[in-house]
């Protein structure tokens, strides 16, 4: 699976973690590799091996100055490619210095995110084109949080539409980034949706249909782009949200959560709500990406709020409602003990596609779906369709990025 992830550009950190030239380096762990990211004196981004080639000291302690990151132990200095550019103990212009190079990966800013590609440099794909990252800056907002479980069990929540009417039912009524739409009424009016799973070039579309009016269905359509990008079907004119689940190691992942609007700036109120941890975002411990509600405080569970019906599980906030249950499964859920039902077909199909992509890459070198940037240009949709309509056909345009056209949503 690690090799599969190395075919893609992945979010490595938020751009504002390196807010200015020569800002302090940041530890980054991805795909079980420890690295440091830094932004040099010329504004160039680098992602290199965390540890100095000399004695293995962490470059997190490094001095980021004069176009390079210097280990404070003995002064070895590296540029953004990991190339040693100064080894003070060696003679001036030493050939040894030119021979020392740490592992490094490209780091590129697109939208609010710094993206990296950790695969074979010869096969580096074109840059990502996800709409949330390419709209003007005032139309998008991205946050991230540390989730203490394997990425797959977290990601599977993103294509599991049937939990929304239960776990997030409180949020549909009260969350400022969700509430007040006709779609919510349809959502709560029919707790037994029908599901339809359709292949897409980059992954899947999972459609959940509920009764709307007498001759119509309310469809909520969730795209998945391999390996780990999902979008939540929109609600009214609220911004559109979605996630990336990025493996840190086998037992931890980063959840990147974004909100954007395809055609208008986010309002001050909306951005404030996102910063306060509403919608798909979380309220984090200041200066960290660890949620305030976490396993060490039992997610601040409020049994009285649960009893009153303010929240369904007693945990506040949509993000932490998901994370608390996904983490409760253990660091890596034992899938031999699960009992899936046919309503989990989206999850079943996604696992199968991932497994087949891993095998095709391993056995035949086939590039997996989701690498091609054209696969990134998808949207979620929430639409009312005549009962006889097939969502894939009827929503073909709604499910693609259309410049200057708002999301399809009720």
């Amino acid at each position, binding site marked *: 699976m690690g090799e599969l992830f190395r075919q893609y550009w992945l979010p490595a950190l938020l751009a504002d973690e390196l807010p200015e030239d020569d800002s302090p380096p940041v530890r980054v762990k991805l795909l079980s590799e420890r690295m440091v990211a830094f932004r040099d004196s010329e504004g160039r981004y680098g992602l290199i091996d965390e540890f100095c080639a000399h004695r293995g000291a962490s470059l997190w302690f490094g001095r980021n100055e004069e176009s390079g990151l210097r280990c404070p132990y003995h002064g070895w200095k590296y540029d953004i490619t990991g190339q040693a550019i100064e080894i003070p103990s060696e003679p001036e212009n030493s050939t040894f210095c030119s021979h020392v190079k740490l592992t490094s990966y490209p780091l590129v800013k697109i939208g609010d995110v710094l993206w990296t590609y950790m695969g074979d440099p010869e096969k580096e794909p074109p840059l990502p084109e996800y709409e949330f990252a390419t709209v003007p800056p005032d139309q998008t907002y991205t946050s991230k949080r540390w989730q203490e479980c394997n990425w797959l069990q977290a990601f599977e929540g993103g294509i599991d539409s049937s939990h929304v009417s239960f776990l997030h039912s409180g949020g549909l009524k009260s969350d400022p980034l969700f509430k007040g739409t006709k779609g919510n009424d349809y959502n709560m009016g029919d707790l037994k949706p029908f599901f339809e799973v359709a292949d897409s070039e980059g992954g899947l579309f999972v459609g959940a249909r509920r009764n709307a009016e007498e001759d119509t269905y309310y469809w909520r359509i969730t795209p998945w782009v391999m390996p780990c990008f999902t979008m939540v079907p929109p609600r009214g004119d609220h911004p559109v949200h979605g996630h990336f689940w990025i493996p840190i190691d086998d037992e931890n992942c980063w959840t990147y959560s974004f909100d954007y609007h395809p055609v208008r700036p986010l309002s001050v109120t909306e951005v404030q709500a996102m910063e306060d941890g509403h919608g798909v975002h979380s309220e984090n411990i200041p200066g960290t990406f660890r949620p305030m509600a976490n396993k060490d405080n039992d997610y601040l569970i409020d049994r009285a709020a649960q009893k009153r019906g303010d929240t369904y599980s007693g945990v506040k906030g949509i993000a932490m409602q998901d994370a608390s249950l996904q983490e409760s499964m253990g660091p890596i859920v034992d899938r031999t*003990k699960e009992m899936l039902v046919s309503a989990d077909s989206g999850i079943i199909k996604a696992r199968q596609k991932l497994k087949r992509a891993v095998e095709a890459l391993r056995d035949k070198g086939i590039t997996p779906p989701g690498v091609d940037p054209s696969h990134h240009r998808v949207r979620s949709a929430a639409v009312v369709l005549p009962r006889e309509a097939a969502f894939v056909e009827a929503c073909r345009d709604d499910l693609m990025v259309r410049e200057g056209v708002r999301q399809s949503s009720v």
Partner: protein
Amino acid sequence: MTVRPILGSSCAKATSAAEMRYRIDRPIRGRRGARIVGLDAGADLIIERIAREPWGHARFFALAGPVEDLGDGGSASVTLRGVDGEKCSLLAQLDDADVVIMVATIAADAAAATVIGAACTVRAIMTAGLVIADVARIDSTVAVMRPHARVLMGSGDERDVVDLLTALRA
């Protein structure tokens, strides 16, 4: 400010890899009655192949004849044919079913989908539909099955049937 102790039952301890090893390790009683029914000749061939694999309580069937020819007989008149050639009634098979998976290719018996779907609905049996054919040719079959399958998936690969049944522990 009081510091909450981390108790044995706290999430911090309970979710650790070490603690998860104590999850009860005995099989959970679950699915006992998956019924897989082919709705056209192409699906029957797929089911014949798949039925040879080792399954739990799953039973595999074809329609014994076109359901639209049965007139107003309804579900009581629908006869299935097992992969061993034995015939049985649909309703007898639904008695202890907990999910019915209808498989079709490009010529699904629409009347059968309707009758089986309705019979499952009144008995609160979950239904799923799998349409296995070139994805460019499945639209009409998907449309036929949509009202009658709570979960519907189209695919060009018959391994999807195996994967779904495996995941459902059929």
